[in-house]
């Protein structure tokens, strides 16, 4: 294992310390661990808080700042953060407008964020959980933990973060987040595995001439393994998996303030069709260079154009990674006026920065 690390047990803390030094707009807390803005926000602003296992940087800590997240809670590498982190973090940044957790759909993350939401709600700090489950590589939710939360998370954090700055209340922010989730779809491929520092060896085995289609951001297996092929062919497979994905209906747990408990909510993602306008992201899983991502974007645009789907905004780069994995993911989020308005709003974070 060749990595830029000192002691394995210090990896997360040292990376957080580095972020704080590099970005004076951010503040870190180490017991328990969270990253938040240095400046207090307007009274009554909804707090947008996310988090998850480390190893996906810049997500989530790199998206803390004006126009995006208020705070992020990093767990150990590929391991969910614990409820005391979200609880302490939310209490530190909460500002009278309530708290919205944006949670990627993984068993551990869901449970830890739910426990934190229970603790906060029981203390009268209104807290809602919205899940992201956009990975079309997982076909059904009946016999699995459901679709995983991947690329749409980045888009959602941007859009909902902007809405909260514009004065949306907790309910409105939650509705918008749910809408973005229902309109987002992603799929990834791995050319190589990745190495978790504590494990010291690749997370899964893959032959030199094989690729994993539909890989998750922790190296979870996807739909199939095929022989390595061209950028065009890979882009074709990923894009078609997203565009051919049918309507997807699932039940997601959300906090019900009236009964002070969890309630399952049905969410339907309608399939994409011609005429749709998309925010597109071509994302590196860590070790794939940006240059290769542009080859993918070129083909993605071509396939979408043929189907009369237009890519009206884009991100090309490393935004949600899987440590040092080679590979990429494609995310498409069907935009509307509200989504584009908040997408175009100014953002100032280490990982995403535009407008004023």
């Amino acid at each position, binding site marked *: 294992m060749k990595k830029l690390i000192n002691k394995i047990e210090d990896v997360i803390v040292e990376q957080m310390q580095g972020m704080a030094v590099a970005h004076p707009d951010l503040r870190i807390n180490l017991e*328990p661990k969270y990253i938040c803005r240095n400046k207090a926000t307007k009274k009554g602003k909804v707090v947008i808080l996310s988090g998850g296992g480390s190893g996906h940087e810049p997500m989530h800590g790199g998206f803390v700042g004006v126009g995006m997240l208020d705070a992020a809670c990093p*767990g*150990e590498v*590929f*391991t*969910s*953060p*614990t*409820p*005391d982190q979200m609880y302490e973090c939310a209490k530190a940044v909460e500002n009278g407008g309530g708290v919205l957790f944006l949670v990627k759909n*993984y*068993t*551990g993350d869901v*449970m*830890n964020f*739910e*426990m934190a939401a229970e603790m906060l709600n029981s203390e009268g700090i209104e807290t809602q959980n919205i899940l992201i489950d956009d990975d079309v590589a*997982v076909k059904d939710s009946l*016999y*699995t*933990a459901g679709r*995983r939360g991947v690329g749409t998370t980045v888009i959602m954090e941007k859009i909902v973060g902007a809405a909260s700055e514009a004065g949306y209340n907790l309910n409105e922010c939650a509705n918008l987040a749910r809408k973005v989730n229902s309109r987002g779809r992603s799929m990834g491929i791995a050319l190589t595995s990745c190495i*978790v520092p*504590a*494990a010291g060896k690749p*997370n899964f085995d893959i032959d030199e001439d094989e690729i994993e289609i539909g890989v*998750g951001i*922790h*190296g*979870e*297996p996807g739909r199939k393994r095929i022989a390595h092929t061209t950028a065009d062919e890979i882009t074709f497979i990923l894009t078609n998996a997203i565009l051919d994905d049918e309507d997807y209906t699932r039940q997601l747990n959300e906090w019900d303030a009236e009964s002070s408990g969890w309630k399952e909510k049905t969410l339907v993602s309608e399939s994409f069709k011609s005429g749709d306008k998309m925010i597109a992201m071509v994302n590196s899983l860590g070790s794939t260079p940006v240059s290769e991502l542009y080859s993918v974007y070129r083909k993605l645009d071509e396939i979408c154009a043929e189907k009369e789907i237009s890519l009206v905004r884009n991100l090309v780069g490393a935004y949600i990674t899987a440590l040092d994995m080679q590979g990429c993911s494609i995310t498409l989020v069907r935009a509307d006026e509200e989504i584009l308005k908040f997408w175009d709003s100014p953002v100032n974070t280490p990982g995403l920065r535009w407008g004023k």
Partner: protein
Amino acid sequence: MKTINITQLVKWLENSALVMRENKDYLTKLDSDIGDADHGFNMERGFNKVLEKLDELSASKDIASLFKNTGMTLISSIGGASGPLYGTLFLQASIVLKDKTELNLRDLKDCLDNGVNGVKLRGKASIGDKTMIDVLDPVVQSLSDSLNAELSISEALTDMVQVAEKGMKSTTDLIAKKGRASYLGERSIGHQDAGATSSYLIVKSLKKAIN
């Protein structure tokens, strides 16, 4: 022996911590086959925190506060899915033990019953899903049977460990329906579940602490 006291329960936690340390690589190996290869590290980290707090835990005024403190410690240090699940097991067990400083067989069964129900609600898993419930559910059933058959605590614990082992081994042939292993579908068959294994190790540590 008619009851279990705080000293024995603290010994149980200490044994569990040592067993997690010994089995760190084994649990991680099981988890890397069908999960995300962190179960051993996470369980060791969580129970190490319990170990650090052993003096404080020994001084608990009753078993409810012992279990509550243990549960909170595990929740805030294990992470992943196991943190909330093992934490909930202890927290929910503590709820039915108000002011108790000793457990008879009925208390033990009642508190584990409540704890395991909490785990089921949190993780939405049922028996046969290839999870820790495949160990914990039969454990509660076994304690309940032993109570009805008026067995001694020692006999009850012997039976309990046997069904726990059987439950753990039963997960090998199952298809995972929860957690990260569920993405493998049928490819998860043939692998023993890591969470069921750590549950078995904890159950076995209880018997060892008390005999």
